[in-house]
């Protein structure tokens, strides 16, 4: 149902060309809103008894291969589903003015198509469907970048498209391997459903799991993206339109970490143990490398893109601990980062849109001219650097604590220094960027006469996110309660 609604919406808006294209945004808004309402309804339902909700239809049934159209929501996916529905709606609201310029019906159709794919990824309970949806997200994003993107959009779009496609194909090999292995164990019928594979895979040998884990992990790590597989991200973000960036960073990157938990951990616990130190190494590398990358950037949006790398590294760190707390707060950090990057990319998009450039050296003193803009930017940056009281802190503090606990067991306490360094750097680059863009003397290098403050629709979209950032910042348990049953279960698997 959650997939169907945006799909219908996408098709309708797609055909709203010509004179009707003005209304495309309302249609898109209505459909995303319906989806969000349904999601909330589902969350309430879930909240009542924490049971896994799902539906299952037979799809491709051959003598050898069984593929079903199975959807499922549990503690891992429910927040992601919520995030998808929310950000899609907000992107539509936020882009009301931006998208009016060039074929708004296509833009909104793409947003809705993205929503279809993303929902599909998070809801799928069958590897075939999962992979299908995984790839479905690529195409709208490709178009979004190359239609509505910046000057180097062609390069960025094709790089994004092919790089992530290669990764997903490698992942596909892993999926095949799991499917057939499960098939043999299951009496010759290759059933691609999560239930079958995830229950059979943990019984396989460590060598097999390690191999398959490597394949799958590569696919997910590119998506996350983890250093050194990240280079598509800064380019894609720099060129993507605001709405695209929000969805890309807010929800799409989470597909990677979601996959790691859902597939790699659930199905291949021995593989995870085998590669644990590699995961942690990559995670730490991402965190620090991403943070340093941020310092070096002059493009505001590119900086935020690198910060995503850094923060997703933190998610991976949580996963790498393979402890209940680690995974729990990795999921929470995914959620938190989704909300925060929403704000960040909207703000960065506004910078380019309203001021005309995102080059930090050209900016300065914008706070005087655009106070609301400055306020949102500051909240976003503060949340992202882990200021307590905002949601980012709960993705950071307990997560690093989980890592600390892990290190205590391993007797490798000094490694916590990496995390601390990354925290320090994070604060550094955000503050430095703020100093140079918002504060100081008003820039004379560019013409600011046409720079307007946040418009009403943009304000609404941002305010919703800010409110959520604050609410979950004060009351993290609201989100944790959804996650908890899941982590309790998965730790049993591991």
């Amino acid at each position: 149902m959650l997939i169907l609604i945006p799909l219908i919406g996408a098709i309708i808006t797609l055909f709203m060309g010509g004179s009707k294209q003005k209304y495309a945004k309302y249609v898109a808004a209505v459909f995303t809103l319906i989806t969000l309402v349904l999601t909330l309804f589902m969350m309430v339902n879930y909240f009542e008894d924490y049971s896994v909700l799902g539906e299952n239809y037979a799809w491709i049934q051959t003598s050898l291969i069984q593929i079903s159209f199975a959807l499922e929501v549990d503690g891992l996916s429910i927040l992601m589903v919520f995030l998808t529905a929310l950000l899609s709606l907000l992107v539509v609201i936020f882009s009301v003015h931006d998208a009016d310029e060039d074929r708004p019906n296509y833009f909104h159709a793409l947003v809705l198509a993205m929503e279809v794919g993303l929902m599909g990824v998070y809801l799928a309970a069958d590897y075939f469907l999962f992979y299908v949806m995984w790839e479905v997200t690529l195409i709208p994003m490709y178009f979004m970048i190359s239609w509505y993107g910046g000057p180097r959009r062609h390069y960025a779009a094709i790089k994004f498209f092919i790089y992530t496609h290669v990764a997903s194909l490698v992942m596909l090999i892993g999926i095949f391997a799991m499917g057939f292995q499960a098939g043999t164990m299951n009496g010759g019928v290759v059933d691609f459903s999560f239930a079958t594979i995830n229950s059979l895979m943990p019984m396989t040998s460590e060598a097999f799991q390690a191999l398959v884990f490597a394949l799958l992990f590569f696919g997910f790590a590119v998506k996350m993206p983890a250093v050194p597989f990240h280079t598509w991200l800064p380019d894609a973000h720099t060129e993507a339109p605001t709405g695209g960036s929000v969805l890309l960073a807010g929800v799409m990157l989470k597909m990677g970490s979601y996959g790691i938990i859902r597939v790699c951990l659930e199905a291949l616990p021995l593989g995870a143990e085998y590669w644990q130190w590699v995961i942690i190494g990559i995670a730490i590398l991402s965190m620090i490398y991403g943070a340093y990358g941020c310092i070096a950037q002059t493009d505001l949006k590119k900086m935020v893109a690198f910060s995503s790398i850094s923060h997703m590294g933190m998610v991976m760190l949580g996963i790498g601990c393979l402890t209940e707390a680690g995974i729990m707060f990795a999921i929470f950090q995914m959620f938190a980062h989704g909300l925060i990057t929403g704000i960040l990319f909207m703000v960065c998009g506004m910078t380019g849109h309203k001021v005309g450039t995102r080059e930090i050296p050209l900016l300065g003193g914008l706070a005087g001219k655009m106070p609301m803009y400055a306020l949102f930017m500051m909240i976003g940056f503060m949340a992202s650097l882990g200021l307590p009281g905002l949601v980012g802190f709960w993705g950071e503090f307990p997560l690093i604590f989980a890592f600390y606990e892990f290190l205590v067991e391993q007797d490798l306490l000094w490694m916590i220094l990496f995390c601390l360094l990354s925290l320090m750097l994070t604060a550094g680059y955000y503050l430095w960027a703020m100093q140079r863009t918002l504060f100081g003397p008003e820039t004379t290098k560019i013409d600011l006469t046409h720079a307007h403050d946040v418009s009403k629709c943009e304000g609404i979209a941002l305010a919703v996110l800010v409110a959520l950032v604050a609410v979950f910042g004060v009351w993290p348990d609201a989100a944790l309660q959804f996650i908890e049953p899941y982590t309790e279960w998965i730790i049993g698997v591991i």
Partner: protein
Amino acid sequence: MDMTTIFGDYTAFAPMLILMVSALLLPGVQMLTKRRTVTWAFAFVMTIVAMAVNIIMLTGDFTGSSLGLVEYDGFTGLMNALFLAVLFLAVLVSNASVETTRLHVGAYYALMIGATVGMMFVASSSDLLTIFVGVELTSISSYALVALKRNDARSAEAAVKYVIIGGMSTALTLYGISMLYGLTGTTVIADIANNLTEMNWMVAIAFISMIAGYGFKIAAGPFHMWAPDVYEGAATPVSMFLATGSKKMGLAVFIQIFMVLFAAGTTCADIIGEEVQYLFAIIAAITMTVGNIVAIAQNNIKRMLAYSSIAQAGYILIILAVMNEYALTAGLFHMITHVFMKGGAFLIVGALICVGLGEKISDYKGLAKRAPFLAFAMMLFLFSLAGIPPLAGFTSKFFLFSSAIGGVDGVTSQWVWLAFVAILNSAISLYYYARVVKAMYIEKGTTTEKVKIPAAFMVAIVICVLAVIVLGIFPDAVFELCEGAAAVVMG
């Protein structure tokens, strides 16, 4: 309806018979009526009749043989259906395409139908002799088809190349068959399989010659060099016919010969089964890699599609490396989806040639504005070829590549590298497909004038679009047919 009541002992022949008769009649029809539309209508109707007969036989699970020459079973039926579908698409648009309407239409349809008969003949054979004759029938007809654009120099050049390479391949094939015959004393494939007892140089030359000869038909590397030139030179419906039909015939030959020769338990399989598998794996890897990499460098869309078919043939060759029932099923399924996606792409190119658009990729700039549906359909076909879900190309590749990883007996690590090669290739292919999509959707064209294409093309393209989507999302029914066919071949 029981076909045996109508065709009697010739039932296994039935679809071929209908087409053969109509092929013989067609030049006469043209001469008598002098109206190309009537000729077309006759060819079209006969195609549909043959198709209907075949479908009835196929769905009725008919099996049988006629004259000890042809056999009809699930596999034959499926391949026949495939060839007839190709013929159907080609004939459907031929009356609308400027490239084909000015030809001698009687001969044109007769040749096309003749070529199809050859293909079907191959699919029903179990003897090297009949296979040889069938392949030659198709080959010679298609030489003529390519050359039929009599006033087009490029067509003539293509035909010269085609006939020379084709002749050489025939010679190689024949030489290989003669060796095999000498070694085993028979041309019946199933007998060869058990008469071959040792491996030596002669066996090697025999097999390689045959692989080369028929590899020519499917344009497997390194025997693929003719394909881009010929596809570029021929009329687009003919290119489409060759790329989808003739190529599948080559694959059918490979399946008929090698899958039987190396079926489990034959002495042939015992002595060189694995070696041949490796050989095919290498050929498959070369084919797909060359096809994809060179396709990147192309600016002519027909050449690009030609290289992409080379690559697709490479993917399908995976089945001969893996050589199990599941792989064969997947391969057959991919052959079917390939007909629609590659056929559809060629059809769009042909349709656009009709309205005066060039063959260069740069001519497609801004097509999305000029012909939204065509551009969308083209995008679907190309993405399907690239294997993007949820289109048919993805589903079939999903099965095909998965067969390299494992099968009923679980994971076989032997061919994982091949799957890797295939998958990397698949990613490379996305690059050049995306170039076309980019030209259509993202770059601005010089004009925004709307494009209107002939209705017949539209119908054909819609059929392909539907097939690409439906086969992608609901592959069950067709996949089952493939399973049945594969089961027949593998015994």
